[in-house]
């Protein structure tokens, strides 16, 4: 039977699935999908079979059980009577802390050394090169352990501070104690503090309770308002510049706007510094920055900073010399040239690889266990898994956490990247 369509009918041959560009990509995608699904199915089936063979089931119930172990670095309330879920949360916060601190310091180091390596001064650029190559080419784990070992072996123990003629003494007018257990620094305290608010979610999230210091909230709010005012001042300065060509000097106004309200607030709250003091086996009072945190933070930052330095150098190099010359020829000074011409172009090149460095740093922080830093890999993925025998569940949860965190970081950075890019095109 013939139909009424006019389109010429072409015969379809099976070989077209492979050789015809119209079908080829579909064929490949279908095959890939089938293979992946089959592999996943096989893995899942084996897992279930193996678990039943071992007589184990898959459950997350253990998260609600008493953990029974203590954790030294806690950003939220926790003790051995809390649940494994709570221990996981303590670990998560510790991971976030070291990853956050690491990303900031790594970026600072990376920018400094990236620019220094471009320096015309031979010694300076050589030193930067030594830093970059030294840290890039030695495995991170070695740096973590080496830095930790140096910190432990080269610093005095708290007991050395004791006695008539102590072997060691505190630094910075008795405010800071550097020991082989970490640094004890003064902690901010408030004589007229406003106390804490308790945040207590219910149901499945019951483990997520935490306290927030009202003092901190008030300080942050003040800071935000000050920054908004500063922004206003800057916008006005830009308007004035647009209108008259001369930009009014704003730095001291801005400084005043930021410093004065905070200072007044701190005075009102009765701010003072609590000094660490030797008592018993250890220092008490003050804030204890454990060696495990310091060593991990330093190692992660120095290591990742070396990679970022190369990215920064590459980004700046990617902007042709002609751009600088054109800017100079127009009479722009070097710092303005950097800010108005080079950096906006370099950032476009720098940000995407920077994102992967931040992700690397975050994931690398899971080496923490090597020096006993209690991150999520050490709590949930380490002690909890070991005490409960739930390795599959534990490792899956830890993996899921890193996955979500990485996605969050790259989403945030991509958003920033888009903003930078938008200005260019």
């Amino acid at each position, binding site marked *: 039977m013939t139909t009424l369509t006019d389109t010429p009918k072409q015969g379809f041959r099976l070989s077209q699935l492979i050789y015809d560009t119209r079908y080829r990509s579909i064929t490949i995608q279908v095959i890939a999908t089938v293979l992946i699904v089959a592999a996943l199915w096989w893995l899942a089936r084996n897992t279930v079979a193996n678990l039943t063979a071992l007589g184990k089931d898959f459950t997350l119930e253990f998260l609600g059980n008493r953990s029974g172990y203590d954790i030294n670095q806690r950003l939220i309330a926790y003790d051995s009577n809390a649940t494994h879920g709570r221990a996981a949360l303590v670990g998560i916060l510790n991971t976030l802390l070291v990853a956050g601190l690491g990303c900031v310091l790594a970026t600072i180091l990376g920018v400094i050394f990236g620019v220094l390596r471009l320096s015309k001064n031979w010694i300076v650029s050589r030193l930067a090169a030594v830093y970059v190559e030294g840290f890039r080419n030695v495995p991170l784990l070695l740096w973590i352990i080496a830095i930790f070992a140096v910190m432990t072996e080269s610093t005095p123990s708290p007991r050395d501070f004791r006695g008539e003629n102590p072997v060691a003494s505190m630094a910075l007018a008795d405010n800071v104690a550097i020991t082989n257990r970490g640094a004890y620094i003064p902690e901010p305290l408030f004589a007229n503090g406003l106390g804490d608010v308790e945040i207590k979610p219910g149901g499945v999230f019951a483990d997520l309770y935490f306290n927030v210091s009202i003092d901190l909230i008030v300080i942050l709010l003040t800071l935000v308002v000050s920054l908004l005012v500063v922004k206003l001042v800057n916008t006005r300065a830009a308007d004035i*510049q*647009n*209108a*008259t*060509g*001369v*930009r009014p000097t704003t730095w001291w106004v801005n400084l005043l706007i930021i410093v004065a309200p905070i200072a007044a607030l701190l005075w009102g709250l009765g701010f003072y510094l609590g000094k660490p003091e030797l008592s018993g086996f250890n220092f008490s009072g003050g804030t204890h920055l454990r060696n495990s945190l310091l060593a991990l933070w330093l190692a992660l930052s120095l290591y990742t900073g070396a990679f970022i330095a190369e990215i920064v150098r590459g980004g700046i190099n990617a902007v*042709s010399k*002609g*751009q600088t*010359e*054109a*800017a*100079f*020829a*127009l*009479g*722009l*000074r070097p710092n*303005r040239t950097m800010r*108005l*011409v080079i950096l*906006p*172009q370099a950032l*476009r090149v720098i940000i995407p690889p920077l994102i992967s460095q931040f992700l690397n740093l975050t994931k690398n922080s899971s080496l923490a266990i090597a020096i006993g830093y209690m991150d999520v890999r050490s709590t949930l993925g380490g002690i909890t898994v070991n005490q409960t025998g739930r390795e599959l569940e534990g490792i899956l949860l830890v993996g899921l956490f890193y996955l979500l965190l990485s996605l969050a970081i790259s989403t945030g950075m991509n958003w920033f990247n888009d903003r930078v890019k938008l*200005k*260019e*095109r």
Partner: protein
Amino acid sequence: MSELAIERQIDRSHMTISDEVAIQINNMNKWYGQFHVLRDINLTVQRGERIVICGPSGSGKSTLIRCINRLEEHQSGDIIVDGTELTSDLKNIDKIRSEVGMCFQHFNLFPHLTILENCTLAPIWVRKVPRKEAEDIAMHYLEKVKIPDQAHKYPGMLSGGQQQRVAIARSLCMKPRIMLFDEPTSALDPEMIKEVLDTMIELAEEGMTMLCVTHEMGFAQAVANRVIFMDQGQIIEQNEPHAFFNDPQSDRTKLFLSQILGH
């Protein structure tokens, strides 16, 4: 005589050369490491002069004009621009750079800024001109180089000839008294060379002091009042265009002219 015939009548009414000295170069030498790029350069440029510099590749033409706005540093001798001597004093460098405009072979427009922003950047941040006023000036010069309608596009969207004209407009926005050109048409397709040269001719007609490295001999004939021939870092010969082309003195000049004019 050249690939490019200048068709229109050139208005020479403003092309007057005053006694005032715009650029004075005395016994200037420059080295790149061991390599002696510029040897004993002596050159006086009067205000309103239009000088074409030619010579084989690598002879130091670019280096010479880049020394004039201190993109390169010279090691001995003096360069005095508009009465200011070029030293490492930042103030002097700033002053000279804001009086001397420069156009490059590869345009060097800022790709992340629009055409208009390219033109207003320096006036705003160096001359401290209010934005509105800077934009008016920019539009004025963009009209002059005949591309006001491209003001809000980005450099990447323009043709080479248009980009070079923007680069000229960008320099003019700083109201320079001297313009340096380093092979402004070398990177362009033939049909675009003309539009750029036309712009340069107009500039000459208005009496701008110009130093121009170019191999466009038609342009040299029509506009320049002096042609300088350089080889191996030295000024070998200089003369007014007619004499330079028809009666070259040195053998090297003759050889060069025969090569470039294809006799």
